[in-house]
């Protein structure tokens, strides 16, 4: 047991206790949390900063607005419903198409308008929000993912997670939905995480259910060696979220849209730790380098990315 703990320490693996006390609490001012906890606020903020985000079709904050939502559902061929204060990908419904007045979910199942309205009602009453507070439901643009990921994902949209410390991209991974995760890109729910070389944007090995694996569990295709297009754009969006929110420790979730390129999906002020397994590398060493560098000089977005590319290549 001690050996294991020492070995992990040696590799610079960050644990929850240290993450909470030394990073989340130190770099993230509580009063800024609403900016990332409320996805509508995040989206508005990003649009003000000319950052690409999925378009918001409608925000539903009152029970009576649910009836009127049918019009929006009619006008859009596909869309995503999600709670503004959701955590861990809970409560998200992705509608890919319509058939016979019913809606097809990303897993192929058909649901009725009533089902969707019930889901909206659940979101409003706070089922998915932290602490059960009343919530707002968002209906937004469904990201059409790039064909690059087609061979290595099962339904759903793969997304890219970049962890930034004081605006320095520290580590990145792509999260691939699996059958187990029901098309969701959340590692807790069984999605697969694949590490990304910060310098080149090339995928490394994968982690699934806390185990290191090389192939996607559903498609069987190798996940390593994929080159993510527009990688510099990804890094730029992630790095500039620091100035945008003022939060020093962020997990930036991005998606690659076939037509619109990289988009910022949401931000997380308490990013998870599995990214370390996906990269087979502890993140603490990188944090220490960043902390040392930022103590020397305040750098701009481009300089920070250059620093990260130089020091954190795989």
């Amino acid at each position: 047991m001690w050996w294991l703990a020492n070995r992990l320490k040696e590799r610079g693996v960050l644990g929850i206790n240290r993450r909470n006390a030394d990073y989340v609490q130190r770099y993230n001012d509580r009063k800024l949390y609403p900016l990332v906890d409320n996805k509508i606020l995040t989206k508005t903020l990003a649009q003000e900063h000319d950052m690409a985000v999925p378009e918001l079709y409608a925000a539903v904050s009152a029970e009576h607005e649910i009836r009127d939502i049918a019009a929006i559902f009619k006008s859009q061929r596909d869309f995503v419903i999600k709670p503004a204060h959701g955590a861990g990908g809970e409560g998200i419904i992705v509608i890919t198409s319509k058939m016979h007045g019913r809606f097809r979910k990303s897993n192929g199942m058909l649901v009725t308008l009533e089902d969707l309205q019930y889901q909206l009602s659940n979101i409003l009453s706070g089922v998915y929000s932290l602490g059960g507070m009343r919530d707002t439901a968002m209906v937004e643009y469904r990201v059409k993912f790039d064909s690059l990921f087609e061979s290595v994902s099962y339904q759903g949209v793969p997304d890219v997670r970049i962890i930034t410390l004081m605006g320095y991209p520290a580590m990145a991974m792509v999260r691939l939905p699996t059958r187990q995760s029901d098309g969701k890109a959340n590692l807790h729910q069984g999605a697969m995480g694949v590490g990304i070389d910060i310098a080149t944007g090339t995928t490394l090995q994968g982690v699934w259910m806390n185990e290191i694996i090389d192939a996607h569990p559903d498609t069987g295709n190798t996940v390593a060696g994929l080159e993510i297009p527009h990688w510099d754009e990804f890094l730029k969006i992630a790095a500039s979220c620091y100035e945008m929110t003022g939060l020093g420790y962020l997990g930036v979730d991005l998606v690659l849209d076939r037509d619109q390129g990289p988009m910022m999906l949401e931000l997380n002020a308490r990013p998870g730790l599995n990214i370390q397994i996906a990269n087979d590398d502890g993140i603490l060493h990188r944090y220490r380098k960043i902390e040392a560098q930022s103590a020397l000089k305040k750098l701009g977005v481009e300089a920070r990315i250059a620093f990260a590319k130089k020091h954190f290549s795989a």
Partner: protein
Amino acid sequence: MDRKSHYHFIVLVIVLMLSGAAAIYYQHVRLGLPLVPNASKTVWEVESRLTFDALKDTPIKATLMIPQKEAGFVSLQENYISKNYGVTEIPGKVNRKVQWARHKASGKQALYYRLTLYKHAEQQLTEKWDFTSSAYVGSIHLEGATKVAASALLEDVVELSADKTSMTSALIKALNDRNSDNVQLLLGNRYSAENIADAAVALLSLNHVPARVIHGIRLKTATKAQPIAWVAMYTGTVWQYFDPKTAEKTLPDDILIWYEGEDPAFKLEGGEHAKLSFTVKSSIVNAVELAQYAGQDRSAFISFSLLSLPLETQHVYSILATVPLGVLMILLLRSFVGVSTFGTFMPVLIALAFRETHVAWGIGLFLIITFFGLAIRHYLDELHLLIVPRLGVILTTVVMMMGFISIMSAKLGFAQGLSIALFPMVILTMTIERISILWEERGGYEAMTTTLGSFFTAICAYLAMTNVYATYIFFVFPGAYLMIMALMLLIGRYRGYRLSELIRFRAMAKKVK
């Protein structure tokens, strides 16, 4: 963490630890509260009963000598029991008295003074009994034949003795000689210990040796305890005690000094046929009872503890007192093991319920209710309800089920089933809701592990909270709270891995770079 706040933290932890330990030490050593709950102590109850017949149409005033406080024992309780009498306590440097007064009364009267006490383990009963010795010389006047007899007796004794100690001893021996005419004259044929002690003190005073009669009660169970008199003599440096019958220089350590001096034990105005009797009873009490007794002594530090509360409230707090301990268990399990639970402190509430139902029954009942609750919740899902009404329906179902289980177990004769009413039903309802959502969102596996984690934590918290030793410590020694706070602060600084993370990241440890 910069250096300054680091020192600040360390100092805070040390201060909390030390002040907690000091408070416990004080209560343990100074108040004699044992650290272990099963340690028992003998508690003595001494009751003095003054009976008399009231004189018609005369105001009554009765004064009774009572022991000084803290004279080698810890007074737990003191009561004056008398009907329709005004009671005044008269403190004094030498003797403490209680005065009962009443405008008028008729018939037999009984006045009680009751003292509950236990002895300090390492303190002699007489330790605090040390007054200015000069005050004890020459207060006795002898005249005529008695004075001659006294001088003759003294002369013999002084001649035969080397120092004050041997002189006192010889004097008492002489006074016990029934054939001596001088003694007969002095004592008037009353050879009681009290008379001899009185005479001995008078003669010592005549010889300018400070001396005093002390009156005490032997702490031995007796319905008619005899007050005893003892001779106390001051050598110039220490007090020495002599048995007036045997002249031995000794003082039994079970003597409770009631008062000192030649005055009678009581004075009565407005009554006749007065009689003073003593009863001594002993009982063995356990540590908590002792602490509860001690709590009624308002003079002590303890009056700020839970023990100064009314007994009923004390009972409630004896349960609540252990909650921080349950919370500590949760902190340990979360920070070091990484057990996931529904809600942060929900396991403590479940553990509180377990206290009443016992673990096996508690888990059984909990599972039954949760299972049916989940079934109902699943059905309600089909109805597309708003969340609060849905929770309301589940809550109502939970209450109904609790009632049903209670009725069934009453019919079947399982007493434990009745205690289900103590389950926190709102917690149950929220647990059902959360299990259900977790199940939908993250699958049955996660829901099961979290449920098991909650149970495991609840059981650990329960074991900690019902530990007899721990309960006792927290209830009796408020200092323990400071110490547990220091522990929690230390846990709050833990930056290492959780046990669950070792498992989670084990794949990263295997590979050697």
